[in-house]
């Protein structure tokens, strides 16, 4: 492979911005300079679909209406733990307007007696049991109420502490396993270990497991903080609920989905219905939000497909608010025990973490990896347990596990600082070796004016003020299986195609920015057609992978397409292609200022009606993924909060938050601010 060496901007602007040299394949485009020297990248560009969204022109999955389409409703259990003895659908079947009924049944192997009974055991309120497709949603709902399910009730347990007790009703009496879904980078622990409802522990870490000697570490400590912290369950509640419209045509299954991962839904539907991937098309044009729970086809996807198959009609199946709360995922709760030891001078000598959390009938209630990585400490061990309860399944929720883990750890660090008689901010300066967060602390503290902070007990009023700081970190991931097609049409149009969906953060807009920057055009000149699995595979919107995964191949595809177009211009001008560039919609030459051709004119030189280039995410070429490097411990955020507490009523008010986040190269300042604002608002509410 022919390579060349290139210098990349590296570091924190205004602090230590420097260059880093990488050896890259010869065909890679030249490095972009810092944002100040770019025209569109890093600027405040209005979302390309802003008007469509605020005027209601944007059509979301729930807005899809197809000829002959039926509306479906799920049948759900209203008991937390039961055996279904029989289901009578006769009344529902005979209701006028009902076209199809599908009940979920245990798969029965040929020649084997089905020891589990005909229907799956009910483990939580809201568990899907079946569905009905009818001519209207109202008829479907009425029909659902006409189904008679006969249950044999079983004892149940719904809270974590009762579930951990000896003799608690057992949720699963067998080892369980669970696959991680789509872009979920949260950890699903091993459900085969453990006793009763308590499964685990998981003791894994980025570095393989426990490290050092905890006992020796705590012996060395002059000060020890030992605390238990709790966080509650959160339900997701995106504005648009989960759901699909399935149009199962003779030649292909078309799935309109409100999803964070078109590709994963496509793969799941293909696998469930034994179809080739090429015969399933998943489409998500506008996405009404998702916080991690919309990576899979769920139970509603296959249900809609089964109803479509039975009825021979397209089927709309969107869930309602109640279903969202009880059955479509939540951030599990946590009970975290933390023991942290330090010497008098503040040096950490040991961190011990033990957590329990319940994701209901699912696994994945850990507290992430923040305690092992935020503050380097030679002695560390974690034990993370999943507790099964008769409640709806948890799901990935914005940095799964990390939020709970950060809450516990940062509380404990504050308490440690207090015991050591140190200011919580300067204590973090002492024990946090991340250069990124150091700068975030400095800049944040200045904006926030941390120096105002008074010792505890200083306020004499009923309403007391508190100033606090908290930190977090999240690894940098990329999905190498991320591809984009850039097309230049011979009418001057430029099109971007990928299966990547815009979760709402503005993915469409940044893709247009990247291509406009590369092609010397305006953002409005670029058409973005994404969220369609008939196009090259893009990443799922999870784990903070999208922008870092999909913008490099987008630029590469645009670069390749441009090269091909410029070759045609070079031929016409009888000059060398390397002299040519496109700026402000004009092709020009470095050598001869006289030579000018509008982009649109240039596209008329094409022999075929389009130039099409597909690029996939390149390697990082010796990049960032190394322990304690940028990828793991170093990135992250520091947030400062000013909070008032009315000591008479107990009311808490968040008066002000200053958030400093590391984000790599910012592509669109407005969207970046929105994303951070959204995170902060979600965090306090």
């Amino acid at each position, binding site marked *: 492979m022919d390579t060349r060496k290139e210098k990349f901007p590296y570091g924190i602007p205004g602090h230590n911005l420097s260059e880093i040299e990488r050896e890259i394949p010869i065909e890679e485009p030249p490095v972009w300079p810092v944002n100040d020297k770019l025209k569109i990248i890093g600027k405040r560009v209005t979302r390309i679909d802003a008007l469509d969204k605020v005027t209601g022109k944007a059509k979301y999955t729930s807005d899809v209406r197809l000829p002959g389409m039926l509306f479906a409703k799920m049948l759900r259990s*209203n008991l937390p733990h039961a055996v279904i003895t029989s289901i009578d659908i006769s009344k529902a079947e005979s209701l006028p307007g009902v076209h199809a009924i599908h009940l979920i049944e245990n798969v029965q192997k040929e020649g084997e007696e089905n020891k589990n009974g005909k229907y799956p055991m009910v483990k939580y309120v809201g568990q899907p049991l079946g569905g009905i497709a009818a001519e209207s949603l*109202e008829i479907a*709902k009425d029909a659902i*109420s006409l189904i008679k399910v006969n249950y044999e009730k079983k004892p149940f347990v719904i809270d974590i502490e009762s579930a951990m007790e000896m003799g608690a009703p057992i949720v699963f009496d067998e080892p369980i396993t669970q696959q991680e879904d789509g872009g979920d980078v949260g950890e699903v622990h091993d459900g085969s270990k453990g006793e009763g409802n308590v499964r685990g522990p998981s003791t894994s870490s980025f570095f393989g497991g426990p490290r050092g000697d905890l006992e020796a570490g705590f012996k060395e400590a002059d000060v020890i903080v030992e605390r238990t912290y709790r966080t509650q369950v959160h339900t997701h509640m995106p504005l648009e609920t989960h759901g699909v419209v399935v149009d199962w045509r003779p030649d292909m299954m078309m799935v309109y989905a409100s999803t964070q991962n078109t590709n994963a839904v496509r793969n799941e539907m293909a696998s469930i219905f034994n179809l080739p991937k090429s015969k399933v098309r998943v489409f998500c044009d506008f996405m009404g939000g998702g916080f991690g729970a919309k990576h899979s086809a769920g139970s509603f996807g296959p249900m809609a497909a089964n109803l479509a198959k039975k009825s021979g009609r397209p089927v709309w199946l969107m869930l309602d608010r109640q279903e969202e709360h009880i059955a479509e995922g939540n951030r599990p709760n946590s009970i975290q025990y933390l023991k942290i030891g330090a010497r008098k001078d503040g040096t950490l000598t040991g961190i011990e973490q033990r957590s329990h959390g319940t994701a209901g009938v699912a696994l994945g209630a850990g507290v992430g990896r923040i305690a092992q990585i935020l503050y380097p400490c030679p002695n560390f061990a974690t034990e993370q347990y999943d507790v099964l309860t008769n409640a709806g399944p948890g799901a990935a929720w914005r940095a799964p596990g990390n939020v709970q883990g950060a809450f516990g750890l940062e509380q404990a660090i504050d308490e440690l600082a207090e015991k050591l008689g140190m200011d919580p901010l300067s204590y973090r300066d002492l024990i946090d070796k991340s250069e990124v967060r150091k700068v975030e602390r400095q800049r944040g503290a200045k904006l926030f004016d941390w120096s105002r902070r008074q010792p505890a007990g200083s306020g004499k009023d*009923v309403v007391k003020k508190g100033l606090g700081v908290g930190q977090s970190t999240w690894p940098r991931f990329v999905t190498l299986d991320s591809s984009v097609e850039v097309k230049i049409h011979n009418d001057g149009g430029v099109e971007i195609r990928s299966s990547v969906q815009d979760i709402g953060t503005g993915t469409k807009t940044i893709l247009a920015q990247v291509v406009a920057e590369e092609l010397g055009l305006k953002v409005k000149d670029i058409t973005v057609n994404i969220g369609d699995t008939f196009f090259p595979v893009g990443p799922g919107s999870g784990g903070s992978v999208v922008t870092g995964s999909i913008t490099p191949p987008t630029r590469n595809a645009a670069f390749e397409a441009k090269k091909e177009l410029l070759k045609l211009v070079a031929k016409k001008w009888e000059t060398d292609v390397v002299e040519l560039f496109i700026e402000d919609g004009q092709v020009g030459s470095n050598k001869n200022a006289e030579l000018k051709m509008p982009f649109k004119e240039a596209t008329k030189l094409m022999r075929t009606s389009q130039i099409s280039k597909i690029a996939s995410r390149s390697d990082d070429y010796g990049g960032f993924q190394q322990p304690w490097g940028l990828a793991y411990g170093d990135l992250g955020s520091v947030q400062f909060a000013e909070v008032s507490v009315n000591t*008479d*009523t*107990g*009311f808490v*008010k968040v008066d002000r938050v200053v958030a400093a986040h590391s984000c790599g190269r910012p592509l669109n300042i407005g969207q970046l601010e929105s994303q951070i604002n959204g995170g902060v608002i979600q965090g306090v509410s």
Partner: protein
Amino acid sequence: MNKFSWYEATSIEDALQQVNSTVSEELYQPTNKASVFKSGGIDMFDWIKEGLLKPQKIINIRNIPGLDIISYDPKRGMSIGSNVTLADIASNPEVKDHYLALHQAVNHAATPQLRNMSTLGGNIAQRNRCWYFRSADHDCFRKGGDRCSARQSETGENENHAIIDNGSCVSVHASSIATALMAFNASVVIINVEGEKKKVTMDDFFVTAGKDIAMENILQAKEIITEIILPAPTKNTKSTYIKQVARESYDWSLGDVAVVFEVSGNTCRSASIVLGAAAPVPYRSMEAQRAIENKTINSENALAAAEAAMKIARPLAKNGYKVPLFVSTIKQAILEIS
């Protein structure tokens, strides 16, 4: 949601001819044959969507002419038609000038979208928000059942519920506007099918659970609210309203207080103190009123009045926080008067 017919009432008489039941009657003892009124529809459609109310006919009284007028006369006071939207009250300058506590209460009620849709008549006649009452999966005395899940000390989710007069039902009234209206000694004007008009005070409009578990107000099937009348304030009338919520932008009240005083200087000559989200109906605290009347409005006396109000509080397992909440809020509201 069941299928129902829709009737567009053109006059009060027309509407009263059509109606044969109330939402409350239907919730207590469903016939599924009722013809009921709908004004803004905010509360009613929730019940229909939950499947707890299945009316045969909905009589839309929203477009009856003449019920959407606000008028103010310095001598006679203010009249607010039952179909006036909360948004109209919220932006009415005379409400702000003469009935500050009402202005504050309306501006803190629901969301801007809901205020555009909901009417004052519907607001004061809406049913309580106890989640067991509103759940098709739960029993409730107010739905003719024989069990109250909210009251259960171990399992009852009663953090939003009543701390006063909670012997028969632990719900709290949902209208925070009613708190302010009652403090202003407002009256409700009701017409029946015979064309007879009656004017009842807010205190008499609401019905305690102990008196009738099926009802939260006195409205009968063949009756309609036409207007709400607020007496004219004097130059010595002062008022304020405070609503405590978990989320400031919009939320149900955890405890709200309306205070209307006649003052001379810094002394309270007569007091009207009403608590919302404290009891199954808006609760006038005679204890607090007595404690502050003819007293100087100061921190000490305000606290004494607030504490007097809470003497009769009997919190449930999860709403003990409401007692200090009300003490603090009543005190703050009284002090805001000065």
